[in-house]
């Protein structure tokens, strides 16, 4: 197992370098003079010279890439053009918000996805199954921004149960923080719960059709034991893969949810940087998020190998 983990970790390095190269190359897609795009056509020669120096624009592509990557490995991703602080600092400030919503959304998606998915498979063809699948289809077809706006309209504007938006750190006031988190977490979590429910149902149906389940039943085992001990253990690994995939989708969806609920997270930082063409922040945040996703994928692979003994480590 240790050798397998080391091998998977080593395999990530070339992938990470390729990801960083793509991230850095995107700057080169800018048509025309990048300084005009960043500073505008009327920038003073001094401002241009300062920008050329700070972004190493007088070096060749590979030299610049090497310098950027070298600094990034040490946690230094350059200075933001508009925020007046380092990219790493900006990310560190915003990350807790995104992580909090992300973790909350993952919990919501697991709670609303896995149990209904299992129940739906066990009650196949009945009203419960149909209802769960209809709700799942609605979830999959609802964009985060629409779900967020509907929740705001019903629960914040009309019922006044929750605030319209904003963020309170968990450490400052727990009750207020949770009230601010309910709607964003539900918005993100509900949509991906739909995907988890569908996949859980399909996987469970697949597993429940196997011979060993029939054997377990014919031995006279109670249905609860058959489901919990025999079926779920096998269904767990494909479900883990979907959950890993959903975590990545939640990272992606968090950008929009943060805008809907005016949360000062990574998504808000990236969108504002894209709108202002603050390229160092866009690049830094892209590299940071992609690195996170590579690590999540690795974790899912390892968990998959752990859950499914049929996977060989060599």
């Amino acid at each position, binding site marked *: 197992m240790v050798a397998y983990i080391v091998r998977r970790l080593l395999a990530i390095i070339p992938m990470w370098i390729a990801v960083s190269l793509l991230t850095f190359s*995107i700057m080169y*897609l800018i048509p025309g003079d990048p300084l005009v795009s960043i500073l505008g056509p009327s920038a003073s020669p001094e401002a241009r010279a300062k920008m050329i120096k700070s972004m190493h624009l007088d070096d060749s592509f590979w030299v610049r890439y090497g310098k950027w990557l070298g600094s990034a490995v040490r946690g230094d991703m350059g200075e933001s053009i508009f925020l007046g602080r380092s990219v790493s600092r900006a990310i560190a400030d915003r990350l807790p918000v995104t992580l909090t919503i992300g973790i909350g959304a993952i919990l919501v998606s697991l709670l609303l996805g896995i149990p209904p998915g299992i129940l739906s498979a066990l009650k196949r063809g009945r009203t419960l199954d149909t209802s769960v699948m209809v709700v799942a289809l609605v979830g999959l077809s609802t964009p985060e921004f629409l779900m967020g*706006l509907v929740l705001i309209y019903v629960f914040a504007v009309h019922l006044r149960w929750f605030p319209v938006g904003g963020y309170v750190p968990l450490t400052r006031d727990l009750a207020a923080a949770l009230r601010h988190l309910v709607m964003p977490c539900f918005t993100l979590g509900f949509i991906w719960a739909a995907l988890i429910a569908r996949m859980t149902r399909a996987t469970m149906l697949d597993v429940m059709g196997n011979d060993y389940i029939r054997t377990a039943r014919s031995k006279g085992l109670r249905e609860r034991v058959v489901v919990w001990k025999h079926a779920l253990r096998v269904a767990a690994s494909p479900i883990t893969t979907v959950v890993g995939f959903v975590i990545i989708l939640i990272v992606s969806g968090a950008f929009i949810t943060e805008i809907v609920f005016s949360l000062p997270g990574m998504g808000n930082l990236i969108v504002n940087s894209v709108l202002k063409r603050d390229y160092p922040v866009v690049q830094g945040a892209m590299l940071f998020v992609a690195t996170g996703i590579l690590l999540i994928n690795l974790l899912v692979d390892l968990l998959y190998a752990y859950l499914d003994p049929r996977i060989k480590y060599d």
Partner: protein
Amino acid sequence: MTSGRAEPNPRQRFRAGLRRTLRQRTIVIGGSILLLLVLAAIVGPHVSPYQPNRLTSAFLKRPSAVHWFGTDNFGRDVLTRVLYGARMSIGIGLTTAVCSSILGTVLGMLAGSSKRFDPIIMRLMDVIMAFPSLLLAMAVLAALGRNAVNILIALSIVYTPRTARIVRSSTLSVREEVYIEAARALAIPWWRVLGRHILPNVLAALIVQATFVFAYGVLAEAGLSFIGVGIQPPAASLGNMLGDGRSIIREAPWMSFFPGGFIFALVMAINLMGDGLRELFDPRLRKR
């Protein structure tokens, strides 16, 4: 070569295929809703008495017989803008599905049939897939500029790898079939083997994937426009209409809910069709 029983002619085959398709309820329901929405988007703007971008003094009027979906904060008719926006969303979603299908098929078939290109193409696809789709699309738009063509380029780049992966794995499995070996032994050029023998076999998986990319494309365009990175005002897009309505949802919920409802119905119709097509092409799924 003659077989024992008569081969059905193309017309009979088409009828049998159509009957099988129509038996899938999800395809019929999804397809009908989709057809209705597409027709509304094509015909609607010609029938509407209002201009999508003309400013009037009829600000924030509630839905009524005059303005079925009400008016926005610039006095523009929301229904007319929804229909124009739907054109944009459907156009971008559909074109993204077509472009990423073509690119994905070419790359996937190349990777699946050539050991030399396989690692290069698939690693590139892995790199693209390491980014959340919306983030990569935003970065491409930040670099290229924000307009409909660049959204299309960004989304096609983002959704090509999934198609390429599916086509590659189908190509790999078809490649081992005896008839492909026979074709190779007859010295039939590789591009002909790909086009005549492998492509028809990957078509089913490709159509299902393209349907889902259509839905992703609609959602992604709406998402990008909602956050202000996509279609720029005053041009109407379902996403930027929702974005405009967000700040005044208390006063004018119709500004958000009508475009939102259209996106929801559109994506649900496409998803229903995708589910139905997947079941149609994959007999193992039919019994579930």
